[in-house]
């Protein structure tokens, strides 16, 4: 890993989680690892922030959660996207894309 890992950009954690879970139902650690992998290690999610965010998203109805037994006699909490979560993801993606392209245009502008 050549580049230093950073915390997730303020306010984008929910969107990243929703996007990750939209690929397939996943437990907390899996979500964190997937964000790290897909961002090629740019984003490293703090476990405490991740788990509280998951709890918040579940209680808000954007994610569903269920307990599944694991081979080593633990319970794993697996999260999946709800329809409400899907709508929010779409909205935030569109919003984010618009902002990013705007910023990109600004940065490319020649003075």
């Amino acid at each position, binding site marked *: 890993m050549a580049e230093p890992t950073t915390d997730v950009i303020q306010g984008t954690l929910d969107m990243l989680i929703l996007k990750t879970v939209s690929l397939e139902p996943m437990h907390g650690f899996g979500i964190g690892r997937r964000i790290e992998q897909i961002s090629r290690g740019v984003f490293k999610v703090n476990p405490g922030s991740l788990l509280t965010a998951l709890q918040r998203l579940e209680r*808000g109805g954007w994610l569903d959660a269920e307990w599944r037994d694991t081979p*080593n006699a633990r319970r794993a909490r697996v999260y999946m996207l709800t329809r409400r979560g899907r709508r929010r993801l779409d909205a935030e993606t569109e919003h984010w894309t618009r902002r990013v392209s705007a910023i990109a245009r600004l940065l490319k502008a020649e003075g």
Partner: protein
Amino acid sequence: MTAWRDLARGVGRLWHPAAADRDAIDEVAHFLDEAAAAYEARGLSPDAARRAARLDVAPTATVDALRAAGWEHVVVTAMRDVHVAARRLRAAPAFTLVVALTLAVGIGTTTAIFGAVNPILFAPLPYSDANRIASIVEGRADGGWNGGTFAFFRELVERSRTLETIAVARPWQPTLGGASGPERLEGQRVSASYFAVFGVAPAIGRTFTAADDRAGAPPVVMLSDGLWRRRFDADPAIAGRTVTLDDAIVAVAGVLPASFENVLAPAAEIWMPLQYDMTEGRAWGHHLRTVGRLQRGATARGAADEINAIGRVFVAGHPDAYGPTNFVVRRLQDEITRSVRPALLVVLAAAGVLLMIACVNVTNLLLARGVQRRAEFALRAALGASRGRLVQQLLTESLLLAAVGGAAGMVVAAGGVRALVALSPPELPRVHAIGVDIAAFAFGAALTTAIAISVAILPALQAAHSDPHRDLQRGWRRGGGEHHRTRGVLVVAEVALAIVLLVSSGLLLRSLERLFAIDAGFRGHGVLTMQVQLVGRRFSEPRVAYRFFEDALDAVRRVPGVTSAAFTSQLPLSGDRDEYGAHFDATVTQQAGSVSAFRYAVSPGYFETLGIPIRDGRPFDDHDRAGTPLVAVISESLARHRFGTESALGQTVRIGPLDAAPYTIVGVATDVKQVSLAIDDADAVYVPASAAAATIHGGGGQFGDTVMSLVVRGRDDAPAPAAAIRQAIWSVDKDQPVVRVARLADLVAASAAERRFALLVFEAFALAALVLAAAGIYGVLAGSVAERVREIGIRAALGASRGDILELVLRQAMTLAGAGVVVGLAAAIIATRAIAAMLFGISALDPFTYASAVALLSAVAAMASGVPAWRAVRVDPAATLRAE
């Protein structure tokens, strides 16, 4: 967030905290496993992988974070805070009790007093557009007041443009017949417009019409809701039915709604049209209450100008019926509250002072506690408690305290309202509207709570601000001096306010003493009084009425235990007020002239029974009866006013109409207080009831003395039994109501009811203020001694005697009390001006009262400093030095 799932999850966690905790722990544990497995997969040893994962995940903090998320966490924390706060308050029971009681007294009394004063003085009367209802009274040239006449009422109806409707009323006590026996009712005879003035429509039937109000029209009555339910079983078809009133058959026109509150005569249950006629003499009698509804946009002042303009012409045209008169127009509310307003305002102000003392006391106690707990908060801040957390904790504690105090205050308020109603002077209007005032309660509770909160969080803010290290050190030594000054100032304020209340109640007490020391002109002790009201047509013949009274008197005199008995047409200090013109003819030295005088028609034995000394001449005896020359006894003051140093005996006086028969004055009696002990209004003419009855023929006429008061003196100053006397009267005629049974001594006491009411309230307030001030002094001294244990120990070790140490503490106490007294006396000199109107025979600056208040407060201050002083004396120097 849509709230449903969030709410359900939160409630679930509150309901099953253990299950929620297990979920959080399991999830974090699983996360930890996966993280460790990932590290192992990268080649770390299981142990190293586990350590690395723990470093990443920080499981304890993460589980805590999961627990702390969600709204329910606020509830959990608050509940824990309440729990902790309750434990802390229980650990300091004296502090808690004093603060709660202080709050209760402050909030409770303010609420109760405002609840009593508000509906009477401030809340509008319960009528539509109540501010447009005005009262009209006639002010005489001598400063007294007269009732209105029917003649001038008619004049106003004719001419007034500022009044939309005008009505007159007079008291009326008919006897209602029926299957359940005769019942004496309170009622009013009113002009047909009476209910229109108040804007009241009948609930059943109709109100009076102009046709009902004509002389000779068939009689009709209106019933109150209460009477309709009590006597007529709420008969919905009552309108048009007939009832028996005073032996006559009368039709019921309608029933008034239950909501109708008749402030002019709160006890009235039945109304009949006045049915006066301008041809009658009584059209000119000054005995009517006049009320009117102002035109929209008209003011009382404008109405007064117009009515006086009409009045000037009218008075000039009728000099025989009207002297110089100033017609006074007031809002009805002002008129009915006029006599009680000063007392109520003063009491309200006293409640305000008490609330101020309560606020000062609460501030003081909380400051003291804050100082004591400074070390605790410094410690907690040093251990990492955030400032917000400390503030939250203290806030919870203060709110809990305020809630307890508020609840106790509500109890005090409810009890206080009940006590006020029970103690209220009889003139107090709208008594049943008095209740616990929620707005006042909220005001008192909000004020004290705000104080409690702002004072209580001070130590938390300081703890978070200041250097924990230094505070811890200082705290252990319980130092800290700047608060002492603040608390000292507060105690001084408290003592000063207590002095104001003590002086005020002292002045009221001395006024009442002076008032009761006044010679009423008669010996009331041992005299029983009751009123006999004759019912029935046959008594409209005065001679028949007088014969009944004579027979009843004979029967009463035979009752065992009765030493003397007599009748009188009006009783002193009972609320009776029959004034008539007394006319004197010109003599050699005097011009002819008229004065207003109380008229008493009495039986022989009246002066003896009441113990009224005869100054000159003779009292009435059994020879003064019908057929003998007309004789009269006048009061000393009337004799002096009219005849100066000359003897009044042998002169003549006519009473009532100018052409009345002349009475020869045969005696002069001592002045008697008729209206009130405080009022010198003693011009009076006594005539024998027998002669009065004989000179009037038929129809009730000028003086239909069918209502007489019986006065009975018992043996050995012990009142004769009322029941036996009533039986004696009924042995003559069992249908005659006997009412207003009272001891004359009680009537005398009741005549000062307003002053007594104010005094009682002030005494209660002054006592509460004294206790609060004592608590304040005690609190400061106790805290100061506790903080100076070290200093006192060292002084003792260095040879200070117990006396020296005692002096140390007491000097502090007396400095505080002394400063408070000085400020308080200055404040009292200003504040007692407000009660000057309530004082009698005493200056608002009476030195004895001021000195007594100071002495009482000093004694209480000395007592309050007793326990701290004792503690200071008991400090063991050896123990103190060891502790160093």
